[in-house]
C-alpha cells in the first residue's frame, strides 16, 4: 500500500469538494432547509403566537420533549470538544482528520441547544432577562438557580467552541484564499486576518491551541454536569440523584462520539475521497472509545436503579416502577438498555469496529438510546412526584414532535451548507501527516 498523499492532492480533494457541488447536493440541502422551515420554524412560530398550550405539557409535567432535545443536543455537542481539546493535549494521533468535523458539529449542535431553551420558554421574547445586565431597576439574576448556571456554562461553552473552531481554521482560510476567486476569495481573505504562515504566527497559533485546549477541557466535564444539576438540585424523585453529573457527562460523550461516527460515515459514503483520510484506524479508535463510554454509562444506569431500590421509599419505588414496569416506558427502557448497553458490547470485536456500515447502525441505536435516556428521566420523573393526587401522564403533541424532527433537518442543513464554505477537514493538520500512509497508525499508535 503505497498510496502516499501529497500536499497537492490534499488541496485538490478538499478545495475541490468545497467548490464543485453537484445538483443533487443542492436538492438535498434545499429539502433539509425547507424541512427545517416547515417542521421546525413554522410550528415554533405557531407556538409563540398561540401559547405553550399547543404542547403536551401539563400540571405537573412542565418539562417535556423540548428539554429532552436540549440535553440531547448538548450531548451531541460534547464530542467536538473532547476530540479537539483532550485528544490534542494528549497528542492522540487519530484526532487530526476528524477534529474539524466534530468541532463543526459542536458549533451547530450548540445553536440548537440555545434554540431549544428559547422554544421551551413561555415568554421567549424576554429571554434577555436571564442575563445579568445592568438595568434601571437594579434587578439582578438569581445566581443560586441551576438555570443561571446553565446560562453561564452554555454561554461559555458556545463562545469558546466558536473561537476554538475559528482559530484553528485561520491557516486553512489563508490557504484557501490562494485557491479561490470571487466572493470566496474576499471571504477567506477577510477571515484569515492576514495570516502569512510566518514562524512567529505558527508559534502563536500552536501556543493558542494549547491554551484553548486546556481551557476548554474542564468544560467537557462542567457543562454537562451543570446541565445535570438542573435536575439533580431539585427534590423531585427521579431527578434528585447524586450520580447525575458523571452519568450525564458519560452519556453526552457517548452520544457525541456516536454522532461523529454517523457524520463521518455519511461523508465517506457520499464523497469517496474522504475514505483516504478517515480510515479503519479511526473507526477502530472511536469504537474502543464508545465501548468504554457505554460500559461506564451502563454502570451509572444500574447504580441509579440500585440506589433507588436500596432507598426503598414509596417515592423512589413508584418513580422506578413508572419508568421500568409501566407501558409504554417499559418497552422504551428495554430499547434504551439494548441500544446503550447490550449492542455496544459487540464493539469488543475488532472486525465490527472497523466495518463502517456496522458502526453506522450501532451508532444510530446509541443515538436513539441516548435520546430515550433523557426522555425517561425528564418528563417521566415528573409524572410521579410526591402527591399521587396530582400524578399525570405526558405525551408530546404534534408541535413538539414536529419541532424535534425539524431540529435534525435544521442541523443537517446548517452542516451541509457550512462544509461547502468552510473546510470540514483541517488542511494544515492533514498536511502534517502527508507522506504517511493513512491506513496505518504512525509512530507508536
Amino acid at each position, binding site marked *: 500500500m503505497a498510496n502516499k498523499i501529497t500536499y497537492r492532492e490534499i488541496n485538490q480533494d478538499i478545495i475541490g469538494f468545497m467548490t464543485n457541488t453537484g445538483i443533487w447536493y443542492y436538492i438535498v440541502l434545499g429539502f433539509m432547509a425547507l424541512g427545517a422551515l416547515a417542521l421546525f420554524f413554522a410550528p415554533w412560530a405557531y407556538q409563540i403566537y398561540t401559547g405553550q398550550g399547543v404542547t403536551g405539557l401539563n400540571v405537573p409535567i412542565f418539562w417535556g420533549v423540548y428539554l429532552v432535545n436540549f440535553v440531547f443536543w448538548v450531548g451531541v455537542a460534547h464530542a467536538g470538544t473532547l476530540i479537539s481539546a483532550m485528544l490534542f493535549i494528549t497528542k492522540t494521533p487519530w484526532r487530526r482528520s476528524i477534529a474539524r468535523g466534530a468541532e463543526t458539529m459542536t458549533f451547530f449542535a450548540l445553536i440548537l441547544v440555545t434554540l431549544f431553551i428559547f422554544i421551551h420558554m413561555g415568554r421567549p421574547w424576554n429571554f434577555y432577562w436571564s442575563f445579568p445586565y445592568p438595568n434601571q431597576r437594579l434587578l439582578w439574576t438569581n445566581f443560586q438557580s441551576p438555570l443561571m448556571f446553565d446560562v453561564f456554562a452554555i454561554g461559555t461553552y458556545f463562545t469558546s467552541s466558536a473561537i476554538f473552531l475559528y482559530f484553528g481554521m485561520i491557516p486553512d482560510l489563508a490557504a484557501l484564499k490562494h485557491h479561490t476567486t470571487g466572493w470566496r476569495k474576499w471571504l477567506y481573505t477577510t477571515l484569515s486576518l492576514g495570516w502569512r504562515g510566518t514562524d512567529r504566527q505558527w508559534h502563536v497559533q500552536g501556543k493558542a491551541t494549547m491554551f484553548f485546549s486546556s481551557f476548554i477541557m474542564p468544560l467537557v466535564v462542567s457543562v454537562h454536569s451543570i446541565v445535570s444539576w438542573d435536575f439533580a438540585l431539585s427534590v423531585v424523585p427521579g431527578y434528585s440523584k447524586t450520580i447525575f453529573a458523571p452519568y450525564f457527562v458519560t452519556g453526552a460523550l457517548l452520544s457525541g462520539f456516536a454522532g461523529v461516527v454517523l457524520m463521518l460515515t455519511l461523508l465517506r459514503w457520499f464523497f469517496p475521497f474522504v475514505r483516504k483520510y478517515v480510515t479503519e484506524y479511526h473507526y477502530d479508535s472511536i469504537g474502543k472509545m464508545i465501548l468504554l463510554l457505554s460500559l461506564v454509562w451502563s454502570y451509572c444506569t444500574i447504580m441509579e436503579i440500585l440506589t433507588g431500590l436500596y432507598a426503598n421509599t*414509596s417515592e423512589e419505588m413508584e418513580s422506578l416502577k413508572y419508568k421500568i414496569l409501566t407501558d409504554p416506558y417499559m418497552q422504551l427502557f428495554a430499547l434504551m438498555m439494548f441500544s446503550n448497553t447490550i449492542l455496544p458490547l459487540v464493539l469488543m470485536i475488532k472486525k465490527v469496529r472497523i466495518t463502517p456500515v456496522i458502526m453506522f447502525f450501532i451508532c444510530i441505536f446509541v443515538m436513539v438510546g441516548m435520546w430515550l435516556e433523557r426522555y425517561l428521566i425528564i418528563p417521566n420523573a415528573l409524572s410521579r412526584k410526591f402527591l*399521587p393526587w396530582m400524578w399525570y401522564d405526558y405525551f408530546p403533541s404534534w408541535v413538539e414532535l414536529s419541532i424535534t424532527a425539524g431540529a435534525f433537518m435544521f442541523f443537517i442543513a446548517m452542516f451541509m451548507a457550512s462544509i461547502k464554505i468552510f473546510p470540514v477537514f483541517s488542511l494544515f493538520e492533514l498536511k502534517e501527516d502527508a507522506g504517511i500512509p493513512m491506513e496505518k497508525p504512525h509512530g507508536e499508535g
Partner: protein
Amino acid sequence: MKRRDFLKYLGSGIVGTGVGLAFGKVTKPPGAKLIPYLIPPEDVIPGVATWYASLCTQCSAGCGILVKVMEGRAKKIEGNPLHPVNKGRLCARGNAALQALYNPDRIKGPMKRTGERGSGKYKEISWNEAVSILGRNLSELDKNGATEGLYVLTSTLRGHLNTLIREFMSSYGSPNYMQYELFQHRNLIYANRVSMGLDAIPHYDIANTRYLLSFGADFSSTWLSPVNLSHGYGEMRQGGARRRGVLVQVEPRLSLTGANADEWVPVRPGTEGVLALSIAHEIVAGGYYKGADASSWKELLSGFSPEHAARVTEVDAGRIHHIAKEFVKTRPSLAIGGDNLSAYRDGLSCLVAVNILNHLAGNIGRKGGVVPNPAGLLKGRTGTELRKDRITALAKSALEGDVKTLIVYNTNPVFTTPAGVKLERALRNVPFIASLSSFMDETTAMADLILPSHTSLEDWGDDFAEPSTGVRVATLMQPAVSPVFDTRGAGDIFISLAKALGGKVGERLNYKGFPEYLKESWRKIYANNKEVAAGALTFDGFWNRLLEHGGWWQTEEPRHKPRSVSVRRVKAHIPTSPSEFEGDEGRYPLYLVTYPHAGYLDGRGANLPWLQEMPDPMTAVVWGSWVEINPKTARKLGIKQGDLVTVESPYGGIDLPAFLYEGIRPDTVAVPIGQGHRLYGRYAEKRGVNPIEILPVAEDKRSGELALNSTRVRLERKGADGKLVKMGVRTEELGRGIVQTITPEEFERIAGKEEA
C-alpha cells in the same frame, strides 16, 4: 370609562378614520360611550370598594351576603359576618352568583315568540309592549269570567314578593298561585307537622350536639342550609374545649357528609325507616325512654326488633343496638333525615321515624337537638299549602284545559319532572305562557312571552329564613349594581301588570314599584312589632339600619321549648315495610339513587362556569355527569372506570360514564342531578345527562313530594370512552403520610392541650 380605554378609543378612532378613508369608508367614532360618566354616580369612587349587604338566592337557605362593588360592578360576594344563618361564611354556589349576574347567556330584554313553541325563535320587543300583551291577555280572561284560568308558578318564595303575588292573585280572582321546585322539603315540613305539630323546618343544632345520627342528610353540600350546618359541623368537631362530637351517617351511597362521618352505615335503600324504628325499639326496650307512654311506644314498635330489622336493612343487629345505646347515652344527641331519606316513596314516614328517635332520646327543644323556630315575622307558606302545589296537578289541569294563562318565575319544572308527567305536552296545551326568567331554560322555551327579570344582585326583595336559625331572621335584598341588561324586578313586573289591568288589582297594588311596596310592608312590620322597632327612633332610621346590616334578626340564644311526639299522632304515619321501587328485581337488579349535585343543585347552577369547573366534592369530576358503581358490581358487568354505560329503568335509558366508587353498595348505583340541560346557555347545554328523565312518576301521596329514589335499573356497558374528566388521578396515599390522622383515643388524651 377608564383613562386607558379612552386613549384606546381615541387611538382606534384616529386609526379607524385613517383606515376608513383609505378604504373609502368612514367608520363611526366610538366616543359616544364617554358621555354617561360625565356626571358620575354619587357612590362611585374609582378604586375604592363599596359593600352592599344583601341576600343569597342560590338556594333556599337564605344566607346573608356582602357584595363588593367597584366602579359600579360587582366583584366578589362574601358572607355577612353578622348574619345568623351563615355567620359570615358562604358556599361555592353563593360565590358563583356573580356569574349568574354577568352570565353571557342572559336574556337581554323582553321577547315575543315568533316561531313554533319550543323552537326558540323570538323577537325583541319593548317593555311597554311586553307588559301590555300580558295585560291584554289577562283582561281578556277577566272579561270572559275565566280569571281562575290564570296560574302563577314560582320557586319557594318566603318574602314580600310572595305576599305581593298572593295579593295580585286574590284581587285578580285566581286561587292558582303555586310554588314548586325540586328540593322543597315538603316531606320534612309535613312530617314535622304530623309528628310534632310543627308546620315548619326547625333548627338542627349540630354545633352543640355530641352524637349526630344522620339519615342521608348531606348538609355539607346541599341539604337545607349547608353553610349554617357546615359551620355547626366545624363547631361540633373542634369547637374549643368541649368534647368532640361524633357523626354517624346512614345511607346506601356515601355522600360528602358521609365521607366525613366517623361511621358509615350502608343501609339497604328504602329501609332506613325500618332501621330508625328498630333503633327506637332498642331505646324503648332498653328502658332508656322514661316517658309515661313508654308502654304504648313499646307496643307500636314491637314489630321492629333488631333481628327483624337486620334482615330487612342488612345492618347487623348488634350494630343497631349499639347505635341506639350511644344515641340515648351521649348527651346531647340529634337525629336528622335528609334528602336521600325524603326521596323515597314513603319519605314522609321515614322522616316521622327520625322524629320519633329525637323524641325518645329527648332531643326536641334542647340545646344540641331539634330547636323549633319562633313564629316568623311574616307567615310564609305552610306544609298544607305545599301539599296542594303539585306539579302533577298543574300538568293535569293544563291537559284538561283549565290553565288558560301561565306565568312562570324562577323555576324550571320541565327540567325537574320525570318524562312521565308529560309536562311539556301539557304546557303545549296552555294557550298563553309568560316566563319571567333571565335565562333561556327548558321551561322558558315554552313561553310565548318572555319578561326577563333581574338576578338577585340587581333586585330588591327580602327573605325570612326558615331552616336552622332558631331565632327570627329577616334578610333584606338590595340591588348591588344597576341592571346589566334590559331586565326588571319580578315584583315590578307584577305591579306594572296590575297598573295595566286597572280595576281591583290596580287599586290593591297601587305602588310606584316593588321597592315602595317592600318599604311600605316593612313599615307595617315595624309598626306592629315592638321587638323589631326596639332601638330605632324612626322608621327611616330603622330602614337605613336594615339596609346597612342586611336585615333584622334576634341576637339572643334560641329559646328551647320542648315539644313531643305522641304515639297517637304518628301511628298512621310510620313506615312498616321498605319503600317500594319500580322495576322487576330480576330484570332491573340495581337500586338507583339520585342526589343533587353540590354545585348545580336541582340544575340551576349548571350554567355557571365556576361550578362546572369545580371538581365534584366526592368524585372530582368536572364538566359532566357520571354513574357511581361499586367496583365489585362493575367487575361483574365488565365495566371499567370511564366506560360509557347505559342506565336503564322501566321508563327509559340514559348513557353516561362509569365512576367506580367504593362508597356505594354493590346493589346500588347513583347519578347526580343537575346536568343534561337541553337549553340553558353555553356552559350547561348538552353536557351530561338528566337522571330525572328515567324516573317513574312517583310522589309521596300525602305530601306530594316527588320520589327520586323510586326505581331499580340495569346497567349495560356501551363502549370504552365515556369522556369522563376528573381531577386527581390516584387516590392512594401509598404510605406517604399526606393526610395525617390521630385516633379518637389519642385525641382524648391530648384534648386538654389544644389551645385557642
